């Protein structure tokens, strides 16, 4: 059994690197990623699990890092936008589809889409795409651009397979 009290050093696996960080058990993953590891792509939009701007990928699934304790993330593989490296299909697709304006929600959407592609390597039905993306809010775009980006992401995957 694990029992943690007071500030403790834990190990987090983020973007393929292992990091020792000092956390309180009540620290949320989002704050630790941003303030201790300098990974500020994940944003605090509400810290209440409603907007999705803080979404990261945990063991291949999307997770709102404002609703996860950092101590829960030990032994898990965390990926943030910084870990996508600038060459991921989803990043190219978002640029090509003009799927953002202010860019604040973008990291969250990128990670949801990246997780979607991880779990559904073949493009799922539109309804599944919608369900996944309904976890996030965008105040700038009309959403049509983001929808288009998801399609482009899968198109590029198909093209790469060929």
């Amino acid at each position, binding site marked *: 059994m694990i029992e943690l*009290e007071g500030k403790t050093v834990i190990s987090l696996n983020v973007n393929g690197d292992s990091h020792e960080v000092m956390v309180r*058990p009540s620290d949320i993953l989002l704050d630790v990623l941003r303030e201790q590891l300098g990974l500020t792509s994940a944003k605090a939009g509400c810290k*209440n699990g409603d907007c999705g701007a803080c979404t990261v990928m945990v063991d291949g*699934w*999307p*997770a709102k890092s*404002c*609703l*996860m304790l950092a101590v829960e993330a030990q032994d898990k593989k965390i990926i943030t936008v910084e870990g996508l490296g600038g060459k991921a299909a989803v990043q190219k697709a978002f640029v090509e589809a003009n799927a953002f304006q202010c860019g604040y929600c973008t990291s969250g959407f990128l990670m949801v889409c990246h997780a979607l592609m991880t779990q559904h390597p073949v493009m799922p039905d539109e309804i599944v795409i919608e369900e996944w993306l309904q*976890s996030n809010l965008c105040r700038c775009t009309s959403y049509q651009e983001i929808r288009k980006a998801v399609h482009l992401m899968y198109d590029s995957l198909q093209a790469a397979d060929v």
Partner: protein
Amino acid sequence: MIPFDFVYCRPDTLNEVTDTFKRYQNENKKAICYGGGSEIITMCRVSSIHPDVVVDIKNIPECRVLEKDNFFLNIGAACTLNQIKESKLFPLLGLACGRIADHTNQCRITLGGNLCGTIIYRETSLPLLLSDAEVTTSGLDGIRRVPFQNIFDGRVRLKEGEWIVQVHIPVWALQARHAHIKKTTQEKIDYPLVNVTAIWKDDVLRTAFSGICSRPFRSSQIEAVLNDHGLSPEIRAEKAAELLPEPPYHDVEGSSEYRAFVFRNTLCELLEAWQNDRA
């Protein structure tokens, strides 16, 4: 950011949970069960709860069970809504899970969390109320298994230190004819204005509701009316609305009057579909 500290425990066995609860109870500290954590974290953030200890049950094998035996589908309390939905083992419960919060949160929120949380809708309770489900709980006095309805009167009623380990759904219910209609104010990702969940057993309609009142419920009186084929769907819906256990709920999402209007419409929709099928 949670402005205060708590102790984080992650036991590996049921006994360790009990021991942990006992130990902190002796120290006069408040320990709570922690599943997906979404509600606990948000409530801690705004300081509406102040647990001294959170006991994360996600590592306990019994809490992660999701399998069917000859008689029951057994679901561990730490199974996420998304796991339940994707397992497709109990489609009605899957429908309920698929409409709680949003998909990303469904990957975190657990069945136990939705049942035991303070958010009043507890929509996963509806399929359990309709399917004669049972629950296994663990507490300071050990483990017990009881009908779900015995420990649920709109919210889970358990003894101090007792918590839900698993729920068990009789196999008859898994593939039974069912319906799940959730109406929201306007936005799809929202709490229910009215949730009408239904199962048919031997062509008898069972219904349970959330949103329309301040707590989820199942009512034998309402079911009697809804099964009265002598009456038109409109009349049955009208009468059912008169049999609510308390006046319709009222908040910023919808007034009592409007909730009642939606409730009647939703029942009509359900009954008309049933009537058309029978014809």
